[in-house]
């Protein structure tokens, strides 16, 4: 009895409150997007808002169970979670069902579960476990290779399920690696590569190369006294040029047609208001028409009348934008930002390295979802189908994010017991 009180007293209630607010906003939006004119009961399991209530109830149950379980359970069994999850991901490839083009679901009767959602926290646990092991040195190549290996294995399996969005999520762990001492230079290289990729698609590669050449010459002129730097600069230039040349090849031969199309539409190369661009355009219209203070609860005609596809799952942000306007979405973004920063601050106060790394893993995953999901609804990111954490309709995603967050809260509540 004393012990439980102690735990509840140590729980970070701020985070729990933010979580609850987000789940509540999510449910309200699912309600407005899926309810007909006459609502007789909120517990109508034939509707999405009714089902989501059940998912929320189960999520709370899961959260309570996690808070009751011993904190060490998760660090001890991290690898077990991870490998079981890998097996399940492989299993999905053979026994899974296909929903919306992705073979990433297990169907049990009416219920469908998406293992990829749960693979995120298992991976976060495994990465935290590995990096917190004694004698692991981030500077060693072996450490780097194993870390990246831990991330790439589930990502590849998910990619094989044809669920690009969920696979890309693992890219977010670079934030964790960066915090743990991974070279910042690599991140910068990553960013430069991304910029070159986009610029090459927008303009012809010859222009880009010419620009790089010009840039190199200017830099060399400025650094003419530091002869030592010449070699690396010229080397970077040559590597960049090679990368630029490979971009088109990769774009044409590696990406699937629908992925190419989405990127093209995002970059404004293609205008496609019937296909991939349709969602984004409708979504922008719905959000834009919300204006400063929105149309009001249940008055978002575009979302209510199904003009925005997937408006209770991946495009739930539109519903909020249309009905609550600029004020509503700003508040939502602020809540997310506070939650993310809160998790970082909580992570930093951990005594255990495992808890800290796991906390960063949680923040990274949430941040990636937040950025890509909202980014795509307002036309700043390509349309990859990943949910908005805690808000989007769906049991798998809600439970997975709840488990992800509450394992961390459990670790945090237990931090003082760690020596």
């Amino acid at each position, binding site marked *: 009895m004393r012990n439980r009180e102690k735990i509840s007293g140590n729980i970070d209630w701020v985070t729990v409150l933010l979580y609850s607010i987000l789940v509540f906003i999510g449910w309200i939006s699912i309600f407005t997007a899926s309810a007909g004119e006459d609502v007789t009961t909120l517990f109508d399991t034939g509707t999405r808002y009714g089902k989501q209530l059940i998912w929320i109830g189960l999520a709370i149950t899961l959260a309570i169970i996690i808070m009751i379980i011993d904190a060490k359970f998760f660090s001890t069994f991290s690898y077990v979670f991870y490998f079981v999850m890998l097996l399940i991901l492989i299993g999905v490839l053979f026994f899974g069902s296909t929903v919306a083009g992705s073979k990433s679901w297990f169907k049990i009767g009416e219920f469908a579960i998406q293992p990829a959602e749960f693979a995120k926290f298992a991976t976060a646990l495994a990465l935290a476990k590995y990096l917190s092991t*004694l004698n692991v*040195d*981030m500077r060693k190549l072996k450490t780097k290779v194993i870390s990246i290996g831990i991330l790439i294995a589930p990502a590849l399996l998910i990619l094989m399920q044809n669920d690009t969005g969920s696979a890309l999520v693992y890219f977010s762990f670079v*934030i964790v690696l*960066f*915090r*743990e*001492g991974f070279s*910042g230079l690599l991140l910068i290289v990553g960013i430069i590569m991304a910029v070159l990729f986009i610029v090459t698609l927008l303009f012809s590669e010859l222009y880009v190369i010419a620009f790089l050449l010009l840039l190199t010459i200017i830099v060399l002129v400025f650094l003419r006294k530091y002869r030592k730097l010449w070699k690396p600069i010229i080397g970077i230039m040559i590597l960049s040029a090679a990368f630029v040349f490979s971009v088109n090849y990769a774009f044409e031969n590696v990406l699937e047609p629908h992925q190419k199309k989405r990127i093209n539409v995002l970059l404004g190369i293609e205008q496609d208001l019937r296909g991939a661009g349709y969602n984004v355009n*409708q979504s*922008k*219209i*719905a*959000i*834009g*028409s*919300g*204006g*400063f203070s929105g149309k009001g609860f249940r008055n978002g*005609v*575009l979302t*209510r*009348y*199904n*003009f925005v596809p997937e408006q209770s799952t991946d495009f739930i942000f539109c519903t909020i*934008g249309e009905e609550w*306007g*600029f004020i509503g*979405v*700003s508040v939502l*973004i*602020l809540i*997310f*930002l506070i939650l*993310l*920063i809160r998790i*970082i601050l909580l*992570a*930093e106060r951990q005594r255990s390295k495992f808890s800290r790394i796991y906390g*960063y893993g949680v*923040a990274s995953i949430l*941040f990636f979802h*937040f*950025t890509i999901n*909202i*980014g795509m609804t*307002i036309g*700043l990111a390509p349309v990859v189908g990943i949910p908005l954490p805690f808000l989007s309709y769906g049991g798998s995603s809600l439970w997975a994010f709840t488990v992800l967050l509450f394992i961390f809260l459990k670790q945090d509540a237990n931090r003082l017991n760690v020596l």
Partner: protein
Amino acid sequence: MYSKDYSFRKNIIIGVFILIAITFIIRLFYLQIINDSYKLSADNIVLRKVREYPPRGLIYDRNGKLLVFNEAAYDLMVIPRQLKNVDTSLICELTGIDKLTFEQKIKKAKRYSYYKPSTFIKQISKQDIGKIQEKLYQIPGLFLQTRTLRQYPLPIAGHMLGSIGEVSQREIDKDRYYRAGDYIGKSGIEKYYEKYLRGKSGISIVEVDVHNRVKGKYSKGNFDTLAIAGQDITLGIDANLQYYGEQLMQNKKGSIVAIDPQNGELLALISSPGYNPNLLVGRERSSNYSKLLNDTLVPLMNRATMGTYPPGSTFKMVNALVGLQENVLHNDTKYSCNGPLSVPIKCTHDHKTPLNLSEAIEQSCNPYFWNTFKTILENPDYGDTHTGYNNWYKSVTSFGFGSKFNTDIPFETGGNIPDNGYFDKLYRGHWNALTVRSLSIGQGEILVTPIQLANLSAIIANKGFYYPPHLLIKMEGSDEDINPGFTEKKITDIDPDNFDVIRKAMLDVFEAEHGTARWYVLDSVKQCGKTGTVQNPHGEDHSIFIAFAPMENPRIALSVIVENSGFGSTWAAPIASLMIEKYLLGNSVRPALEKRIMEGDLINTNNTEN
């Protein structure tokens, strides 16, 4: 553990978080507050302006009897986008079209728009709609739209009432009120009073969902405009008389025009052969229309308004009136007649000689009116023939001859009265009364319409004035007179006194011993009339009769033309008399005559002769 402390990197990470959040907020500020185009697009997507069509005005006869009313019909509409996995055979079975037609129609609809509804099958009647309605829920993408069809309780007056049809592109360009698929009056009264009959369509703004299903009214209907119903019309037509006249004229070519001389209201406007106006309604419209169009008897032509004939003997009264007015003719003026030997115009009638004016009218003596015409043109008061002719021309045209009345009569033609200039050109200035002698007996270049002839009868009935013949009596909801010209009294050049002898002579046509219509005299009504025979170079002569009754305080004036029926007294005179009887007395006391006229078939006998 010798790991370096990287905890400062949390600041960079938090910085990135904040940067992304700020980027989003800036972007949202642009989308939601600065840029207005998204709000407009949203309205375009969700709001549909639906035109609400008001009921078209009804048309009544002078006694309040309904001539035209509305009946609901349905257009089957299709939205190609929603047409998925359709049961083609079910649709074909319901609508009675074959598969090929189905595919053509769908292709056409797709060409118009993939998202917008277009007409799949037009004007399905109430009888056929039941089974379609039952099964329609099984076919997404098809729905019914209510339409108004015109219906006619009596199968009469097709020419006059006209019909409605879908607007053409030209009509849309002319009047922006119309949208493709709207109905517009295409002919007759429907066309002339289109603006009043159609009313004003309203607009109701509704919200639709992504499947184009109406979800409800926008802003509780605050921005809707109400449709204003079309105005009802009352015509001067007497439906019973019109129906009776059409029956009398069946199997005959020709026309009957009956006017109320006291106000110019047309009581009957009959062109035979006519057609049942119900034929030009609904789905069968175009096939029936082309059938009528290709009929050798030209039923679509309105002979009463478009037919032009030389007036023949009926015109002799006009010449007599001009002569009396010019004081070159008097009732006791006598001219002799040499019968077939008369020069320059022979007389075809066998009668005593010489004759005075009223005898000449009664006997329709040709030489008498040649002499009259000659004295008018050679009147010493005017010096020369051309001035004399000019004066004659002016008097004749004051009767309404030679030009249209320009009222609401559909498809009117003006006929022809040749003027000085015409003959100057034709004869290079060298002509005189002898050259244009045919005009004296209503032949030659003179062409008149049956309406003008009926109007002549009204003028004589009125002793010298007329009101332009017209159809409308009353427009529901319009206080002021929408056609002020229709009630304007037109006075001819002839003084009232000069009509007495003519009227007496016309009475004698019925009542005198040798009157040409003496067989059709009525005990209770004093009828006045004049026969005429129009020489027809293409076949049997046309029979003409003009009449009015009763003699004092006349209430009906009419002209009857029966083509290819020979002498005026055989067909045209009894028809006129029966019409008078019907209108003034309500029922015929001469069933045998009525039967003979109705059963008389001049079309089919003529055909066998040819």
